[in-house]
């Protein structure tokens, strides 16, 4: 008798919990999925394999990426303590340049897309910061772990860092930029950025 009662209480409680999680819980993952699917739709055109992306595709991809990435936050974090020392004009210029560098790098990588699968492993949210974990499975069955770090801005979630196999993009650039600034100067960093971005 008691056991049956207990069973029903447990069942109803578990039903309560398996109801839909709070609306925001899946948001960061949804945003990442949105952008990823958008870009994959542009890139996976039937006979595109091994053909470089044309200007139209590049523009579309840039737009999609622009929506999801918080360039200023990434630029600020990659300059770290050197950010405070910059003038407003320098800051604006740097954000633009860094954004262009990342876009270019991203475009190069996306160009080489050849049917890799993306598996969404889950996310964790802490206040207005989130981490979305993703696994990319290549044609050769290699698995690469990627983690997107997002920050909530109003109603939207924007990416401020990507970690591939545990290597954070922002951290990596931070160390590079710091090395260049301390060994030569900020001006030379800007020069090198411009050289990198210039189309070859």
């Amino acid at each position, binding site marked *: 008798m008691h056991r049956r009662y207990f069973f029903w209480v447990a069942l109803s409680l*578990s039903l309560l*919990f*398996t109801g839909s*999680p709070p609306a925001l*819980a899946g948001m960061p993952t949804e945003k990442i999925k949105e952008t990823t699917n958008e870009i994959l739709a542009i890139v996976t055109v039937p006979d595109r394999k091994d053909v470089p992306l044309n200007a139209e595709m590049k523009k579309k991809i840039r737009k999609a990426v622009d929506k999801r990435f918080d360039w200023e*936050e990434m630029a*600020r*974090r990659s300059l*770290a*303590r050197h950010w405070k020392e910059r003038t407003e004009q320098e800051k604006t210029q740097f954000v633009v340049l860094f954004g262009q560098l990342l876009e270019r*790098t991203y475009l*190069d*990588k996306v160009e*080489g897309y050849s049917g890799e699968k993306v598996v969404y*492993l*889950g*996310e*964790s*949210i*802490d*206040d207005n*910061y989130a*981490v979305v*974990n993703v696994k990319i499975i290549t044609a*050769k*069955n290699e698995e690469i*772990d990627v*983690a997107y*770090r997002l920050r909530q801005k109003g109603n939207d979630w924007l990416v401020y860092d990507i*970690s591939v*196999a*545990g*290597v*954070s993009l*922002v*951290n*990596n*650039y*931070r*160390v*590079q*930029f*710091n*090395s*260049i600034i301390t060994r030569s100067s900020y001006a030379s*960093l800007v020069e*090198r*950025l411009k050289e*990198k971005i210039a189309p070859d």
Partner: protein
Amino acid sequence: MKKTSGIVLMAFFACLLTGTLSFAECLDNQQIYRSEHTLLYSESAPLEEGYTAGLDKSKASSKEPSADVSPFLFASSVAVKGKGAPSRSKRSSEHLVLAQVEPKEEFQDGNDLETIADPLESINRAIYHFNDKLYFWLLKPVATGYKAVTPEKVRVGMKNVFYNLAFPIRFVNCLLQAKGKAACDEFVRFFTNSTIGMGGFLDVASNKLELKKYNEDLGQTLGAYGAGPGFFINWPIFGPSSVRDTFGSAGDAFLEPLNYMIPKSKYRIPVGAYNTINKTSLSIGEYESLKKAALDPYTAIRDAYYQYRRAQIRE
């Protein structure tokens, strides 16, 4: 020299024996593990509990970035504390904690510059240039030529053979890190791949059994026991390493079966060279891509190596 190799071989076979005895048990556990796994995947309720549990744990943990980390595994997860002896907490199958890599503080503060010490920077940079030339002038042309005449399946197969042979290194280091399940899985992988997988050529364990790889080595074991990386060393030919990882590689060499299987030491270098050429042929373009994305390739490689090893140790 003969005596030490004899002892190591005996130790190896002892491991093999104990492994075989528990092999059947392992296989049974695989079934249980996999049914738990599928159960977890379909339930959303435990997920919510798991998130809060993981988040609370990270808030309560110390401020050191290395101190908290819950790696992401699907069922049981293992937490490694940074300094001192590793303490393990096996969570029940209900709690699924995914990569929550940094404590809340690091989420907000973008101003730390945590990287590996590099007192030998000028020497390391010089060696970087040497390795760079070596890649472009020697390794890449040879690998490209080899790639053109060898089908991909063969190259992947050979890579699997070499990987399979390094089993003792992974097995022993899993045990040293008290990762029983990983050691078990690695044993099953080795056994199935060596037999059904034709000496390791076919990675049956990954494809049919869907077993995860646990690529442990002595450097990671030392790291798990609290050894910091020391400083950065860029070896000619061998590439980026650290003080700890150099010791680790030297130690692992005693467990490398190839060193015992090839009786004449003059053949070890060609075999090692073939392994390198084969592996490179499968990843041509990755190094170039890294260089293209970097403003200062040397620093990029050094930091990427540091972060990558740190992430591997945390797993």
